[in-house]
């Protein structure tokens, strides 16, 4: 364990700890539990088989000490990436120590104690700067065609005075004066006045977002009315605009009593007001809790599972978010109408719905880079409270809610319906989801841009995007047909289209997943293809160079190669509109200990997949020496047999 000590500073270790298997009654493994400053590491030692489980402290959602049993003191750990581990620690005192330490380590009191502030991929300062400029939102506004006759970028909020949770640069209608903007912001909850989310340049319709108006029962605000008028005027092709309140009507009405509420159609010219009924963060948190209980049931019957799934309400909520996104996309693309979206504060449901609609409308956001832009724009920059929603720091547990998780799931549901429309695959979604919680990178720390600036994240932490772009090959969708193949996506939202996402919520229960992965198979073919192309050229050069006299054959061969390159289906890599950034992140100097839990898990599962390809049957533990050496730790995996 010298290795662990050196890298992280081992805090303490407990011997003879048992790790219970979640589903079967197999004899529990025994091993040693290590706590470092950043990870909980469990090393299982069974004869010559060595298996390691690494859990990042920030991934830990809850730690429970269960009643003492004859074998020891059980410790149950739930992770934010849906891993569940159940330890039995022989001595109660040790268990208490681990328990107390984990409580502290998983939710530090101060942001500076988060992993990102110590994570160091051995880059110099310049590289760090470059890493943060990978995604530039200005470029995306340009891509949408801004500024133009109707919209402009304003820096009115540069010192965060008008709205503390908005970014410094915002797109607003050209005709909206400063007075209008400031006035409107005073009439909106937390000053979140209407700004542009997405401009659909095909027909000038726009998606805008804001928070609820402070209308109470009767209040009105001339500037706010002017603001909406300005948004409507910016889309001369449509005689009206939609105002979509994403809350259930009852919730919105209740808010009126607190001096908030929703727009009165009579006070605004030419608006169509609409509720779409997505529940609030508390309902969503409880729903996920119930879903987790379903996922953790020990050998449930089919009825238990389906009834539990229904009672959790989870898929009903996913459908509600999807329906709202579809409504927006249809309004913009088909009715050519602009839409203003809000919920209460305009940073949860509004972010879900606006980003989903953008993704349905614009193929760019379905590329790897485009998706990063979308998250930066609609979530990070517009002030989705990642820190609170993900429970990164000690704080009010009622602020925690799986809002972003739901958005990621909506994408997965779309990918199931449109398997060729996305440049990335399911693994990419899972990896992004992991990093939202890992706090390994600075992107998702803090609740808004101002907070992030105050924390000087750009100088003290690294950006996750270059790290992910570096691994693009793993995240490609082999059957992606390019950004021009699909225009606006029109998903079918009948209930039977929504499926339980096993790879997310039972991610670590490998026994439940297909034992052979089509994705792995196809990705292997894709890399074989580029190898093959190289070989063709290499061989051709040898033939051509070595024997000049045999021109006839050589030309035959080049014909063969020409015809080959014509029929080559290329995986389209869309980088349109984005400046290429040289990536220096995570090359030779980056070792396994620096990547997240999930990528470790993936490496293991790759071995497993390989194993099950050649050996789909017997669960023989495989020690992969070369990988072990490359990663500096010994990685051992064993395939799980069928769970029943």
């Amino acid at each position, binding site marked *: 364990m010298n290795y662990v000590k050196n890298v992280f500073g081992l805090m303490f270790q407990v011997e003879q700890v048992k790790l219970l298997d979640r589903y079967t009654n197999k004899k529990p493994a025994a091993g040693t539990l290590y706590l470092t400053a950043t990870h909980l590491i469990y090393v299982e030692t069974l004869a010559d088989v060595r298996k390691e489980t690494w859990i990042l402290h920030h991934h830990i959602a809850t730690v429970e000490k269960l009643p003492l049993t004859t074998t020891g003191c059980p410790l149950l750990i739930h992770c934010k990436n849906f891993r569940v581990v159940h330890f039995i620690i022989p001595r109660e005192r040790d268990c208490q120590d681990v328990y107390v330490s984990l409580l502290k380590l998983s939710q530090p009191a101060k942001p500076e104690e988060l992993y990102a502030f110590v994570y160091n991929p051995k880059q110099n300062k310049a590289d760090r700067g470059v890493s943060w400029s990978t995604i530039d939102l200005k470029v995306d506004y340009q891509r949408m065609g801004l500024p133009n006759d109707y919209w402009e970028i304003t820096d009115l909020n540069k010192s965060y005075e008008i709205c503390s949770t908005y970014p410094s640069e915002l797109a607003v209608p050209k005709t909206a004066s400063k007075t209008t903007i400031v006035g409107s912001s005073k009439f909106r909850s937390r000053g979140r006045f209407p700004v542009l989310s997405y401009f659909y340049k095909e027909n000038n319709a726009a998606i805008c977002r804001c928070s609820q108006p402070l209308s109470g029962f009767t209040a009105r605000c001339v500037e706010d009315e002017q603001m909406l008028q300005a948004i409507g005027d910016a889309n001369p092709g449509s005689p009206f605009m939609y105002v979509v309140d994403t809350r259930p009507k009852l919730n919105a009405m209740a808010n009126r009593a607190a001096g908030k509420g929703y727009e009165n159609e009579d006070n605004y010219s030419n608006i169509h007001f609409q509720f779409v009924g997505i529940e609030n963060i508390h309902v969503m948190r409880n729903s996920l809790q119930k879903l987790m209980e379903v996922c953790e049931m020990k050998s449930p019957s089919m009825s238990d*599972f389906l009834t539990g799934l229904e009672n959790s309400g989870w898929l009903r909520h996913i459908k509600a978010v999807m329906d709202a996104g579809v409504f927006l996309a249809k309004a913009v693309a088909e009715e050519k109408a602009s839409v203003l979206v809000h919920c209460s504060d305009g940073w949860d449901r509004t972010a879900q719905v606006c980003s989903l609609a953008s993704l349905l409308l614009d193929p760019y956001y379905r590329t790897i880079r485009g998706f990063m832009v979308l998250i930066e724009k609609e979530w990070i920059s517009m002030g989705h409270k990642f820190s609170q929603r993900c429970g990164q720091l000690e704080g009010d547990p009622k602020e925690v809610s799986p809002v972003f998780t739901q958005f990621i799931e909506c994408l997965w549901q779309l990918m199931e319906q449109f398997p060729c*429309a996305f440049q990335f695959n399911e693994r990419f979604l899972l990896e992004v989801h992991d990093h939202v919680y890992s706090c390994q990178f600075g992107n998702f720390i803090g609740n808004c841009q101002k907070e992030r600036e105050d924390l000087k994240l750009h100088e003290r932490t690294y950006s996750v995007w270059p790290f992910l772009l570096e691994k693009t090959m793993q995240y490609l969708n082999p059957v992606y047909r390019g950004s021009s193949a699909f225009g606006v996506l029109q998903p079918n939202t*009948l209930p039977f289209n929504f499926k339980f996402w096993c790879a997310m919520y039972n991610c670590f229960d490998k026994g439940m997943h297909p034992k052979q992965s089509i994705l792995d198979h196809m990705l292997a073919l894709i890399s074989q293809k580029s190898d*093959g192309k190289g070989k063709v050229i290499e061989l051709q050069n040898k033939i051509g160079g070595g024997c000049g006299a045999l021109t006839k054959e050589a030309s035959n061969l080049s014909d063969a190669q020409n015809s080959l390159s014509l029929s080559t289906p290329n995986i389209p890599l869309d980088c349109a509109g984005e400046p290429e950034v040289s990536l220096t992140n995570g090359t030779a100097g980056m070792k396994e200990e620096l990547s997240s839990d999930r990528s470790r898990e993936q490496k293991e599962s790759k071995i497993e997949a390989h194993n099950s390809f050649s050996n789909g049957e017997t669960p023989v533990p495989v020690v992969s020496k070369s990988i072990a050496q490359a990663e500096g730790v010994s990685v051992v995996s064993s395939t799980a047999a*069928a769970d*029943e």
Partner: protein
Amino acid sequence: MEFAELIKTPRVDNVVLHRPFMPRVEGTLCLTGHHLILSSRQDSKEELWLLHSNIDSIEKRFVGSLGTVIVKCKDLRIIQLDIPGMEECLNIASSIEALSTLDSVTLMYPFFYRPMFEVIEDGWNTFLPEQSFKQIESLTDEWRLSYVNKDFSVCPSYPPVLAVPKSIDDETIRKVATFRHAGRFPVLSYYHKKNGMVMMRSGQPLTGSNGRRCKEDEKLINATLRAGKRGYIIDTRSSNMAQQAKARGGGIEVEAHYPQWRRIHKTIERSNILQESLIKLVEACNDQSHNMDRWLSKLEASNWLTNIKEILTTACLAAQCIDREGASVLVHGTEGTDSTLQVTSLAQIILDPTSRTIRGFESLVEREWLQAGHPFQQRCSQSAYSNSKPKWEAPVFLLFLDCVWQILRQFPCSFQFNEHFLILLFEHAYASQFGTFLGNNAFERGKLKLPQKTVSLWSWVNRPQETERFLNPLFEANSLVIWPSVSPQSLLLWEGVFLRWNRSSKCLDEAYEEMIHIIEHNKELQSKVNTLRRQLAELETEDVQLETP
């Protein structure tokens, strides 16, 4: 010709046809003895040819003189015909009704169908029992073929040729047959060549309430055990159900009389309950007005996936006993013609790589379903839209196909065939131009002279140009046992069958095509690399030859 009497109005003009995901077609509706045909009489438009035997039920509605006939098919498709004129509409409806419920098997389309292709390999002779036994014979001499049932007198639902333990003579078998339900004495279903263990199947023992025993039966099944080894009897009924069967003359193998065997009870539902389950599932899938909660609760209430889970679990258990425990297995339920066959055939999918190839799967269906006497005629005469109370109907075979699909989904690279092949078998089991699934057992098929009078499905499928469509591009022969997961999270609704007509599969089909394209292209590339390598090697030897003289 009887058909003419049934067809009151042979053709109607200006009929409008509505089909899922297709533009409406206006044209002429014709009724023939076996088909409902709608033709727009324009070359560019597709025609509809629907076998009457594919029609499960019809409904008629009238708005003024415009009649509408809704045709619900056994493949779960629903089409609508708008027919002008009340009389025409009523005539068409009653004709369809009569033609789709013909009593006599010999009036069915397979007896009239003449293939438009040359039969190169007659499917009726492709999978003869003697042939499949040859392979087992090469591995062990403990089994022999018995012709004791050659005139179907011992067991009417068994084929004339059966594999039995070598040490058991035909006389003993006759006695055993009297002790087993409908004469279905234990026969060899599968020989696991890895360890020589076997799977047998039979009908329930007829112990009755006074605990009758049969020494010959005990002798027969003990003859399949190795010295000192134990075997497992997997009873597909719950312990309660099996006990209750005693009162009706059935029963269980009592441990006292079969000390070397351990009996395990599993619960696979009986046919009438399965039929109800199918009806409920299809109803849930077709109702688009459901909200999420209602959909999930209806899906749950249908119990379809519960049945899938139970069947797969039992098959895994049988496979586990054979492969992991190194024990032989006898499987039976009551008759041994339904749940028994689901278990024995799925266990082979798990254990035997051959059964995961196209030919091997056809052979499996032939051996474990057709020859084994699954009553296809009775089970598949009605599907999910049947209005009448089910008598014999049950989706036993469809459940089997669904289970295979579940395993295929979990092991997408281990099957030579794709989902389309399974869907094809589902369709043809319910309505077909081929004779393969007619009749209830070998005896009936013989009486009907099916091999002489009809074409076999296998004759058609095994033509290379047809087979191609059913090949799985991801297939890489995997010679090992494949253990599927049966946790609820791992079992999905088979969209290819149950949502086929309810949502467009265009995007999914495109993804499949794209996948084939990539794989094909990769093969092309590899072969080009190989060609170039060869040419380079040739050039190099030529160079050497040029230099040396």
